[in-house]
């Protein structure tokens, strides 16, 4: 019978925690980039300008139709070569480009959830389209967008494990390296699964608290 030896986990704890940090860092950076990018894409998508709306829709559909793994390879090996991105920024940009398409849909849904009368009363008071969007529509849309954006962050954290294939030393790659030297795959992969779960579960609990607080204030 296989003799489990869990001491490999505390021995490599600092490596695992570094991996956790890098995973969080890359996911957070990707989210921070993908929010303004997604707002831009989402606004383009609902634009009256047919070309602008088509380009944004095409981007969103394309990204949603390509596996993240392939996108990461493409950015790392093609775009990354041209722009000297390195694995870290290839990973961040790849995740952000991927996440942006989903954020765009969250933004569009958020904007469309604001009743039509809000835009009409803003415009009839003399605000330009841009002013009405910025001052009246987006603040309301943003409240609706917060819960799905938070879920998007959790999805990003899980998807970010793929960046290990372009040699970013995130939690997953740390685990692979520890297994390669210690041969303790059962212990290490179990611990890593639990670590991912702790991160995402904690986040979803925090989100739930915020949601409840927000509901009370409405």
């Amino acid at each position: 019978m296989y003799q489990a030896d869990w001491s490999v986990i505390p021995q490599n704890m600092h490596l695992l925690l570094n991996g956790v940090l890098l995973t969080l860092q890359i996911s957070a950076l990707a989210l921070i980039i993908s929010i303004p990018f997604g707002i831009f894409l989402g606004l383009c998508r609902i634009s009256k300008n047919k070309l602008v709306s088509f380009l944004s829709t095409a981007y969103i559909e394309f990204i949603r139709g390509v596996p993240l793994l392939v996108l990461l390879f493409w950015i790392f090996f093609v775009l990354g070569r041209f722009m000297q991105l390195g694995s870290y920024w290839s990973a961040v940009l790849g995740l952000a480009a991927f996440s942006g398409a989903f954020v765009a849909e969250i933004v569009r849904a958020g904007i469309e959830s604001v009743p039509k009368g809000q835009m009409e009363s803003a415009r009839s008071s003399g605000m330009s389209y841009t002013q009405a969007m910025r001052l009246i529509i987006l603040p309301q849309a943003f409240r609706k967008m917060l819960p799905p954006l938070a879920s998007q962050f959790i999805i990003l954290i899980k998807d970010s494990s793929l960046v290990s294939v372009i040699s970013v030393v995130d939690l997953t790659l740390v685990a692979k390296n520890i297994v390669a030297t210690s041969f303790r795959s059962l212990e290490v992969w179990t611990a890593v699964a639990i670590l991912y779960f702790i991160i995402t579960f904690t986040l979803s609990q925090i989100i739930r608290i915020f949601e409840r607080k927000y509901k009370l204030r409405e």
Partner: protein
Amino acid sequence: MIRITDVNKSFGETKVLQNINLVVPKSSVYAVIGPSGAGKSTLIRTINALEEIDSGEIMVDGMSIHSKKTDINKVRTDIGFVFQSFNLYPFLTALENVTIAPIQVKKVKKATAIERGKELLASLGLGDKFDSYPSKLSGGQQQRVAIARALAMDPKVMLFDEPTSALDPEMIKEVLDAIRKLAKTGMTMMVVTHEMGFAREMCEQIVFMADGKIVEVAPPEKFFSNPESARAQDFLSKVLNH
């Protein structure tokens, strides 16, 4: 003040406005009445270009509303619009609802806008509601905030699209009183309404619409006692017997 000339508009196949001609002189109050679906909302919304028109011209205070050369954002600051469903900004307080456009659009100093906003709200009986959010206000109070919001831009014309139709009966009076008070200040107004008492008492002319056309324009004494068109007679017999 408002001059509508040969205006036509269709939604797809349906002609919603057909050959509309109407002049509302300065300081006059005109009521627009007629059965539902007549095109009343569409007409009043074309006056501040919330709806486009297919042909014709609409002039407000000498500005051609639908001309490409007109800066519509600028012209709209002269036209107050009050909606049936209030359309207050739910995330702003009553006072912020009133001051946001003066501050952001007219670039009025914040302190000045706040002072004027408080004055307007107080004059409409909302002196204790400055910091209330719309969801904490009754329908009648919300509509009065909406009127204050429109007035805060110092418009030359006020347009109302069924301002009391979404209100409970006991709140209709407070909103009509606010509009009455405004009429006495000499504001030029067009009011789409189902309140026949208000139309009869306050308005210089009754504009009766049906099927996308203006069927009859007459002073209230004449319109309510002796309407010319069969459509108006039929409409009045239905409404007044209610």
